[in-house]
């Protein structure tokens, strides 16, 4: 009898949405008798081992009706729970999801419901996942409208963006005004700001884990949306049977198409004016220029049986800026100028999920990633022959290319021996191929009269390819020691082999939670993170010229230690409160040397960079209300982020500490949503933050006299120039930033579809927030006026978007 009581059996399976078949991540499966429970993993699977008994399970997922299930446990059981959304049940109470939970052992992690992110009013009415996340404490935006991401004093390259588990290198569109994530394709978003679980690695400051839709397995659904600057369409549904589903989303901006007539008109006017000034006329001139970006997300899911699933997914995103000029002038000269810049990612992955045993779950992934950044110029001049002269041609081509190719193979296993332990372990191997700088120039000139021969110049600069292997193995355990105490501990072992050198790292991770009372918990965590690649940027905004480079034989990996502690309180219907404090120390941060740029030099990038350290600390406060018609959150961050580059020969700012580019003392965000009824809902947000730090050239001094006057007799004052001298790095503060945005959604249901009209206003009270500052020098009669001027780019911006969902 005693043996029978000690016997345990496992209940395993999936939790999914009854209407769409989409698996639910983080759903709780709990035995009400013993109080033991587990959460579903990233594939919506769970495994709960309980003693032989009659058990009563409760399956909960916020926003869905709970499921209760009684099982007489005398053997292993398979259960696939299909949950019904409370919206479909037309429940009166609107319940949102918590974006941070008091009961989880994980701290500094935020799981944001995608519907809530979509509801946040944003620029041009284009819902943007990253910009919505910038409203959370500890996450800071870059400059105005930018989707740059700065977490707890880290740089924009210190964030790991995972799309279905595969890293994306560039997540910015349109110079950073939009992110690469199309919200229509996204199912789940989790942001880790610290206390990283051991299965994540490779970046210092944050992990943004984005999971895309698998596709509805019941029927074909879709939506199409027309916004201020872009159009989107999404389709999902079963292929043949419920076993195979697809999900497809596409987005493209169309400002280039709409503005093309205006661009041509302005260009023609300019060429006519130029012709009048120079006494020539352009007989024929064609000009076109524009910019666009697009995203494509596709996913195919096949369920072989309850234990085995295959996922094939692809993401393709690209930005392109182009200029085309064709001119034929009266002096019989034709000129052709093509200028193209394009950058983007391609990610293709194949994943296979397999339940090896009810307690052991395997996820195998193979992925290919390509990041491209290409700048190309082609200039051709053809001089037609005349009675007096022979013809000539010259062609100049220049290409600048930066590329990364990754091939990834990894295996992740989840092992749930009992409800008190949830073990994750796995390994991965990434083969990197970096081509960080390839510049090639080709000149071909032919002129019978002048040279009677052709001149060819063909050069290639820094065409080196760097191959590297990145290996990782990890193990972690989420251990419920008792009802009050829970810890997540683990270790991530990584190595980066490059240029005949191996950079090994051992990264311990620990976080724990102690329940102090009903809904009140204390959490603390430590994480050691290493990063094997850097993003070199000369600017404060996301530019295509930003250069991803790996560590090398001489450039060491970045690493950081971060400790954090906080209090979390869930007060039921009234709202939740969390306070977190953190301290982070970063080493081997990389910056361009003063004056170095990515271009215009034959030096390798390694000779243009310097290495230094940084530290950041702060306190984050989050108050949120998840239940009722009025939901939302208030986030506040007090923080400080510093840098110091004082290694011999690598000094910046004279070796003295200086504020990081996005050091901000205060950052406040208030986000509210109000659901008036099924047809109308409103949302609004207000942000207030300390102004950005900037470096100003505060002084000017005389350029050295080069004695040209000695032989020209010219007044030396007229020749002499001046040199600007920068002040302390990032010592100047731009004015404080604040802005309010509002939006309203008007829904209407038809028999076969639902229409939503979104009206939003960005920067409601037309605050002139600083985007850049510059010196203005104006000469007028007997007057010289100089001033420091701030430029604001986004005044009040109303927008409207129309979405049809079926």
């Amino acid at each position: 009898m005693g043996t029978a009581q000690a016997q345990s059996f496992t209940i395993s399976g999936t939790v999914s949405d009854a209407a769409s078949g989409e698996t639910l991540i983080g759903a709780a499966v709990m035995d009400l008798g013993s109080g033991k429970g587990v959460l579903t993993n990233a594939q919506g699977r769970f495994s709960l081992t309980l003693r032989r008994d009659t058990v009563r399970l409760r399956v909960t997922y916020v926003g869905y009706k709970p499921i209760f299930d009684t099982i007489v446990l005398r053997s292993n059981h398979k259960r696939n729970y299909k949950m019904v959304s409370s919206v479909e049940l037309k429940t009166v109470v609107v319940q949102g999801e918590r974006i941070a939970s008091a009961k989880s052992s994980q701290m500094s992690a935020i799981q944001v419901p995608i519907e809530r992110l979509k509801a946040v009013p944003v620029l041009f009415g284009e819902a943007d996942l990253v910009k919505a996340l910038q409203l959370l404490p500890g996450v800071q935006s870059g400059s105005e409208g930018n989707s740059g991401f700065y977490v707890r004093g880290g740089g924009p390259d210190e964030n790991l963006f995972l799309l279905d588990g595969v890293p994306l290198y560039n997540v910015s569109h349109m110079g950073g005004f939009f992110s690469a994530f199309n919200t229509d394709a996204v199912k789940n978003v989790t942001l880790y700001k610290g206390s990283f679980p051991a299965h994540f690695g490779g970046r210092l400051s944050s992990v943004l884990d984005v999971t895309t839709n698998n596709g509805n397995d019941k029927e074909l659904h879709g939506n199409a949306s027309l916004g201020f600057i872009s159009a989107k369409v999404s389709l999902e549904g079963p292929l043949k049977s419920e076993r195979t589903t697809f999900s497809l989303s596409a987005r493209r901006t169309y400002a280039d198409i709409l503005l093309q007539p205006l661009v041509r008109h302005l260009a023609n006017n300019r060429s006519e004016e130029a012709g009048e000034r120079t006494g020539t006329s352009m007989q024929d001139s064609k000009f076109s220029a524009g910019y666009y970006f697009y995203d494509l997300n596709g996913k195919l899911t096949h369920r072989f049986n309850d234990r085995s699933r295959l996922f094939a997914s692809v993401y393709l995103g690209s930005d392109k800026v182009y200029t085309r000029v064709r001119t034929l002038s009266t002096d019989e000269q034709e000129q052709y100028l093509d200028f193209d810049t394009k950058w983007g990612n391609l990610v293709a992955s194949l994943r296979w999920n397999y339940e090896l045993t009810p307690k052991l779950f395997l996820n195998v992934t193979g992925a290919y990633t390509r990041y491209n950044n290409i700048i190309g110029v082609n200039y051709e001049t053809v001089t037609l022959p005349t009675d007096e002269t022979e013809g000539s041609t010259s062609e100049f081509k220049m290409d600048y290319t930066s590329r990364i190719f990754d091939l990834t193979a990894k295996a992740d296993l989840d092992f749930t021996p009992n409800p008190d332990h949830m073990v994750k372990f796995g390994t991965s191997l990434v083969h990197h191929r970096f081509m960080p700088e390839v510049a090639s120039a080709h000149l071909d000139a032919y002129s019978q009269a002048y040279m009677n021969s052709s001149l060819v110049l063909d050069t290639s600069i820094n065409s080196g390819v760097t191959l590297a292997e990145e290996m990782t193995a990890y193990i972690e355990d989420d251990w419920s020691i008792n009802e009050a105490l829970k810890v997540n501990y683990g270790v991530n072992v990584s190595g980066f082999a490059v240029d005949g050198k191996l950079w090994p790292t051992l990264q311990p991770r620990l976080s724990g939670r102690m329940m102090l009372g009903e809904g009140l918990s204390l959490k603390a965590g430590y994480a050691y993170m290493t990063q094997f690649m850097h993003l070199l940027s000369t600017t404060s905004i996301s530019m295509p010229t930003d250069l991803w480079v790996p560590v090398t034989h001489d450039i060491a990996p970045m690493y950081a230690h971060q400790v954090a502690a906080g209090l979390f309180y869930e007060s039921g219907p009234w709202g939740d409160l969390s306070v977190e404090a953190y301290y982070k120390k970063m080493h081997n941060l990389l910056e361009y040397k003063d004056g170095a740029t990515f271009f215009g030099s034959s030096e390798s990038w390694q000779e243009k960079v310097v290495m230094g350290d940084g530290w950041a600390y702060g306190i984050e406060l989050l108050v949120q209300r998840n239940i009722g018609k009025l939901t939302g959150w208030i986030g506040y961050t007090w923080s400080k982020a510093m840098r110091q580059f004082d290694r011999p020969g690598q000094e910046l700012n004279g070796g003295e500490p200086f504020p990081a580019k996005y050091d901000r003392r205060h950052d406040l965000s208030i986000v509210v949503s109000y659901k008036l009824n099924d047809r109308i809902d409103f949302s609004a947000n207000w942000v207030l933050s300390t102004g950005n730090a900037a470096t100003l050239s505060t002084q000017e001094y005389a350029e050295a006299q080069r004695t040209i006057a000695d032989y020209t007799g010219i007044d030396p004052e007229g020749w002499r120039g001046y040199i600007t001298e920068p002040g302390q790095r990032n010592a100047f503060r731009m004015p404080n930033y604040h802005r309010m945005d509002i939006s309203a959604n008007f829904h209407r249901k038809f028999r076969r579809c639902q229409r939503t009209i979104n009206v939003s206003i960005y920067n409601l009270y037309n605050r002139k927030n600083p985007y850049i500052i510059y010196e203005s020098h104006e000469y007028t009669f007997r007057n010289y006026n100089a001033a420091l001027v701030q430029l604001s780019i986004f005044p009040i911006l109303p927008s409207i978007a129309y979405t049809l969902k079926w």
Partner: protein
Amino acid sequence: MKKISYFVIAILLLFTSCEKVLDFNVDELEPLVVVNSLPCTDSQLFVSVTRSRFFLDNSPFPPAEGVTLELQVFGGPTLFPTHHDSAYHFFNYIAQPGDSLTLRVNVPGRDPIVGSTRIVPLPDMQPPSALIDTLQPIPLGDIAFTLTDPADTRNYYYIYVMERDSGSRWNRWEAKWDTIDTVRHAYFNCLNLQVTDPSVNLSAGMMGYFNELFFSDSLIDGQATDITVSLLMFKDTAEHPLLKEYTLVVESLSPDAFRYIKEVKAKQSATSYFAEPTRAFSNLSSGIGIFASVARRLYPLTFGYKEPDDE
């Protein structure tokens, strides 16, 4: 069409930028002492010592008061300036190739500013030939010369052509046009380098629109190199070349002078609002500015006319 126009106007209005003048606290800035001297081979050495100005100020740079200067050649006796004119301090010393100089500027209440340089030799070259090619759609003035680079040392060169013309300049103080001579760098259409030694396979060229050339001798180290500079000359100048004065300038630069001039030019031509402001190179301890040597050859040009058969 009207609707499209409204739409376009609406978009333009939305993107209309807003500008606002910001306040700046001037009191926090203490002027810097700036020492500048580019000793020129075979010329009298002079040094300017000025103070920096606030970056929104346009007044002339004030001379640094109360400073004393000392110069040592090969560590020999200390030389002092014979006289000074405003910020300019003149030494009774003519720079000779190979001389090693140390300059010390004593500023009351601060650490002395110290710099050193070695005087570089004049470029080894023959006088150039200058021919106008009127057969091109835009006439070109071809200036050809041979430059011989000394072996075993890293040498730096700076080549440009000064174009002198009479013109007018707006006098903003008196609101009138002044007639002045203008001197500027003439623009090149093409520049070719060809090493004369047939055993060395080097032929490099540049086409485009540029007005100076900086280069190190890494490609032509120890070689005699034929250099052709093709100037852009408009038809009136080509037909009457004496309307303007052209002077070929070929300079040898010390490594510090090369870096200084290159960085200053890069800074002055930088236009990106987003780029981090940078500090120009200085080889002085405890101060800013430059003390580095330059050797310059000047060749006033007299153009002939090129015949098709010349090639």
